[in-house]
């Protein structure tokens, strides 16, 4: 179970990086960055997970609710989501301006990245 759970994290991160490296469109590249970034969300939630655990919200619980999952990791995942959203928004704003200046979204066609 651990192998599958943590394997997903590594796979998400690497496939996101692969997308960034091979991207032919800057908007696609920004999406790939957020895919790689979402690996940290998954990792945080997995570290905080407990088999059979319930959400760390102690309201209307059954008589023997069992253990709760890690609330600290969920709070960190919340932070991660917010920061991820702002990074994506900033990158997309840059993409808008790149398209205006260069007239293209292909990273290989930008002058600074061509030899």
């Amino acid at each position: 179970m651990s192998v599958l759970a943590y394997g997903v994290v590594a796979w998400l991160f690497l496939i996101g990086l692969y997308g960034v490296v091979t991207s032919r469109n800057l908007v696609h590249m920004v999406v790939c960055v957020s895919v790689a970034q979402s690996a940290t969300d998954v990792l945080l939630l997995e570290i905080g997970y407990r088999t059979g655990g319930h959400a760390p919200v102690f309201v209307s619980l059954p008589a023997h609710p069992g253990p709760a999952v890690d609330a600290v990791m969920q709070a960190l995942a919340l932070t991660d989501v917010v920061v991820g959203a702002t990074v994506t928004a900033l990158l997309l704003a840059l993409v808008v301006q790149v398209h205006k200046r260069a007239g293209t979204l292909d990273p290989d066609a930008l002058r600074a990245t061509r030899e």
Partner: protein
Amino acid sequence: MSRRARLVFFAVAAAALAATLGAGLAGLPSFGRQVSAYARMLNEVAGPQRHVTDVVSAITFDYRGVDTLFEEFILLAAVAGISVLLRPLSDEIRELPEDKAPDRAIPPPSPAVWLLAVLLSSLLALIGLETVTHGVLTPGGGFQAGVILASGIYVIYLGTNYRTVERYQPDALLEASDGIGAAGYVVIGLLGLLAGDAFLTNVVGLGTTGNLIAGGTIALLNLTVGLEVAGGFVILASEFLDQTAVIRARRR
């Protein structure tokens, strides 16, 4: 670098990264076995100490409140950065589509779309307010509620047109809500100092667990964060919208 060379370069780097990542992940406790002692303790004490039922809120806004302060300022800085990046440049002008053809009126939206937008945006406003006020009780809080409230404005745009949505999002009000929301967090933090305690200490009356008014500063911080996030995300969306709707290259 050719695409082929780049792929080979990436394959080597990715293999090294995968090996390191794998070694690191293998050192983690096995999945689902146990949570940290810190988390177990907070799950135990958050309810009695802070009179909240949603422990995530207590951690975000109280036990680790300083983290959230910085997180909030990251959001503020990003919104400011986007406003600067997407301002009309020297070779651009703001021009509404109807300015080009003043003799042609914009067709009104279909009544069905309009009705859907009215229903959906009022529903979103209601759910947003519910999420922000119940942050101490159930999952939710300022960040989530801010995004929900902001999406109400997007729905108005989808159902009407640019002119209408601009009437509902006066820039000054949005910027004030973004700024006051961020500053409010610091002010609430300073209450702790005024009471002779540490910054961000929960010094306000804690209320009754399970009631709407509970959690002391946690509920207040939820409100100010909700205000900031709602303002920030509407500004963010309107900046991108301006780019497609009204900002044009200046014709010579």
